[in-house]
């Protein structure tokens, strides 16, 4: 091996070691465990079985899966609808304000999700702000949490930046002159959006949607705190089975199913991201 090659190996070794020891091996272990049999006394016995996966097709678990998919799709839709105006504005904005707006967009993302959920609990909780206002107006308190809408609200607020950033990059690639040409030819803002902006920003929209979806379906904290018993998603299931029920083979099988699904979506996301950056690049 050339000197370069040896140096490369030396530089890459620690990182690769971390990946192998703490990611590859544990994930492989999970796949293996998912085929083991559950034992109440010893958690698992190395007897191969497919019953963990079979258990998954029980209506209750299918229901949880359906809730997960539903929440994922609704969150993605909400992020797309709310995210597009934001992305357009950021893409066309003068750079003086852009720094501040990006900062305000990214900061909530970087602050732990528990904190933001706490905020939502204060807003939507039984004794929270909205309910206090309703009570003051004589309408009586309502349970605004513990439903799919609350979880979607929480996840949307959390994941909006993941939609906005790729979308913004896509819109930036549309030359302003093209927008002006459309307006010069008579397009109203709505027509401009439908006939020019939307088709040309589709790659960014797809990218953002894939990213939001894949993170939404593996949510744990948001449905746990904002959905409660009524909204259970696959993430909650994994948590309970691992830390409460201690049925690790079953937990592993759920994890594998979730993993396969998420990886597929994320790979598609990374592909569209690469295509986007290749096609883009200002002239």
């Amino acid at each position, binding site marked *: 091996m050339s000197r370069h090659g040896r140096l490369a190996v030396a530089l890459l070794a620690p990182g690769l070691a971390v990946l192998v020891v703490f990611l590859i091996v544990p994930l492989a272990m999970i796949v293996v465990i998912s085929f083991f049999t559950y034992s109440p006394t010893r958690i698992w016995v190395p007897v191969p079985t497919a019953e963990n996966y079979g258990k998954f097709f029980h209506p209750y678990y299918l229901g949880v899966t359906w809730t997960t998919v539903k929440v994922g799709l609704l969150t993605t839709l909400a992020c797309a609808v709310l995210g597009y105006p934001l992305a357009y504005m950021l893409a066309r904005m003068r750079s003086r304000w852009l720094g501040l707006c990006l900062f305000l967009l990214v900061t909530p993302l970087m602050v732990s999700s528990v904190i933001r959920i706490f905020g939502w609990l204060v807003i939507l909780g039984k004794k929270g702000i909205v309910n206090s206002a309703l009570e003051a107006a004589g309408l009586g308190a309502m349970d605004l949490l513990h439903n799919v809408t609350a979880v979607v609200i929480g996840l949307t607020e959390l994941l909006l930046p993941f939609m906005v950033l790729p979308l913004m990059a896509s819109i930036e690639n549309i*030359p302003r*002159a*093209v927008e*002006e*040409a*459309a*307006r*010069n*030819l*008579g*397009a*109203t803002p709505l*027509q401009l959006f439908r*006939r*020019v902006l939307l*088709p*040309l920003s589709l790659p960014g929209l797809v990218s953002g949607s894939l990213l939001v979806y894949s993170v939404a379906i593996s949510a744990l904290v948001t449905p746990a705190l904002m959905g409660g018993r009524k909204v259970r998603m696959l993430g909650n299931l994994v948590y309970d089975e691992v830390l409460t029920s201690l049925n690790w083979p079953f937990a592993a099988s759920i994890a594998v199913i979730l993993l396969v699904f998420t990886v597929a979506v994320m790979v598609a996301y990374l592909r569209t991201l690469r295509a986007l950056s290749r096609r883009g690049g200002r002239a």
Partner: protein
Amino acid sequence: MGLDVQALVKRYSDTVVVGPVSFAAAEGEFLSLLGPSGCGKTTTLRCIAGFETATGGDVLIDGRSILGLPPNRRDVGLVFQSYALFPHLTVFENVAFGLRLRQRPAPEIARRVADALRLVDLAGLEGRHPSQLSGGQQQRVALARCLALEPRLLLLDEPLSNLDLKLRIQMRSEIRKLQRRLGKTAIYVTHDQGEALALSDRIVVMSAGRIEQIGTPREVYETPRTRFVADFIGASNLLAGVVEPSGTTIRVGDARLTSSDASVPGPVTVLIRPERIRVVAPDTAPASGNLLSARVAEVVYLGEDLQLTLEVDGGISLAVSLKATVAEKELTPGTAVGAWIAREDVRVLPSPEARGA
């Protein structure tokens, strides 16, 4: 459809980028806005199109102000410098875009698109996408896209500047022919004075947001009114001179020139076009006009032309342009010659100080 621009002003914070600027274009006229980068010509055009909001003044088409209208309702066609074709649409759909917005019936759209493409000589390329077209073809699609809507006014923002020279010359005569044929009023922005001279009925020469001169190509070339116009259009010898109290002679360095331009005594700028200077034997005695004795300093052979630099006794440099058919053997550096200039070819322009800021 006459265009009337009245005292148009465009300001960014406290910088006046354009104005006040006033000019009018008659129906069917081809008017060029000519000037160097940053002179405000594109900003003026964009004010007419509605992509810049005018800070002051008015723009009228057929006597009605259009400044209150948003850009998508002004009914003026804009051809962009970058063409701005819709990359996701075919040539047909690009040209049909405006018609589809207005929800014209399909047969009408097909007919008008076909007509427009035929006008620009692109029939048969309807199914292509912009990325599959050459620069010249894209430019024609951009033109056809505007023409399909039969706008009242055509605005062109340096449409040829991205093309190479040969193509540019070919396209510009096509644009002119097309415009004449359709009888549409056209406002054409360019920094290329040759283009402006070749295409326009009248030229508006602009500099630093103001109009220097408006005139036909001939007027602007032969009787420039300011030093800027003289310098920008065509090659020129610009010399500082003083009109003597008699009013008939101008002192330039050590030499004295007479001009057919009436002039007031005082400092002036003298303009002599290089192709108007005749090189003669040094002891010729001319009947009228100006004769200066000079020495050839430099000769540059350009194929079609010879560019000479003459040092005139008294310390002036003159650029002279001759056809290369003249026997060059006599024009080697160091040769003594006479430079003869007719009185009509000595133009007197106000000196920059006299113009006032």
